[in-house]
């Protein structure tokens, strides 16, 4: 079988889509679970001790931002894969 006759550009696009879709799903799911845990424990802590609310609130926001950056990394990787893949010229030539 001659490999050079295959439609490599179509295969490239299909593989990119097949990787990017499930990739963003997996990459969003686990940070979402982590954020849920943080929000839940923050809520529990505030309800147990409402006078410490301000301090707990800011710490919760901080850790939510930290967890969100993981999802943002996945988004950046997926966007690069879809729109500006650096390997495109390497695989397809020209």
């Amino acid at each position, binding site marked *: 079988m001659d490999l050079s006759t295959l439609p490599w550009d179509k295969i490239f696009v299909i593989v990119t889509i097949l990787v990017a879709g499930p990739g963003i799903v997996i990459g969003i799911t686990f940070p979402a679970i982590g954020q849920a845990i943080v929000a839940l424990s923050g809520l529990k802590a505030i309800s147990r001790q409402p006078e410490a609310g301000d301090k707990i609130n800011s710490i919760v926001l901080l850790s939510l*931002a930290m967890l*969100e*950056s993981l999802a*943002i990394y996945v988004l*950046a990787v997926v966007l690069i894969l879809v*729109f500006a893949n650096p390997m495109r010229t390497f695989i397809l030539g020209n």
Partner: protein
Amino acid sequence: MKKINKKNISKILFLSLILAMALISFQLRKTQGIEPVSVADEISPQVIFTIGPIQVTSTVVNTWIMMALLTIGAYFLGRSLNIRPRMFQNAIEWLFEAIRGIITLYIGETKSSLFFPIVATFSIFIATSNLLGLIPGLSSPTIDINTPLAIALIVFISVPYFGIKTRGLWKYLKHYVQPIFIMLPIEIASEIARTFSLSFRLFGNIMGEEIIIAILFLISPFILPVPMMLFSIFTGVLQAYIFTLLSCVYIGGAVKAHTTS
């Protein structure tokens, strides 16, 4: 009775206006085949003109427009200050108090006026640049990776600057090896990594928002993007708040003396 009628009439007018806009947009696309520009073209900055070897992109021009708006607004606000605050002055004073509160919480009460200008600049600049994309014809400077990276580099430089200024060179360098000298490469790596994390958080949030709006605009103009654009006001201000908070935490980590029990 009359009031209810007026309300009902205005509601019916509003709904019919939206429906008419949707129908017009669909009809236009059906008859003329207007293809909206592709998502990648909408997002990426265009080169507007070149000065010698330097290419001036639309990001820079948008930043200039934003700077002009902020400067003119600040000039006219500063001219009409009262002892008894009016509408806008009240809002600005609230912002001032909020930023002062963040600084006292994370950096310390003693020298809050030293850090106030840079922290307030971060918050105002990022909030305005995130909200600039809502104006038709302009786009947020923060959807280009260079703007968040530049702001994060300012944080990266200002952390040792404030640390040396408040604690002295020797004490600041000592805190890299504070518990044990093995911590030195970890501290340096975390300083570099958090710069990238700061810039990518801001860039990814605004970029993702902007891409979702562009994709919804491809599906149906005029109606579907509107809730997402309303939501983008919230996320833009929230990202500005988080950036300010994190830069305060990083500066505070360098400025505060380690609690040596």
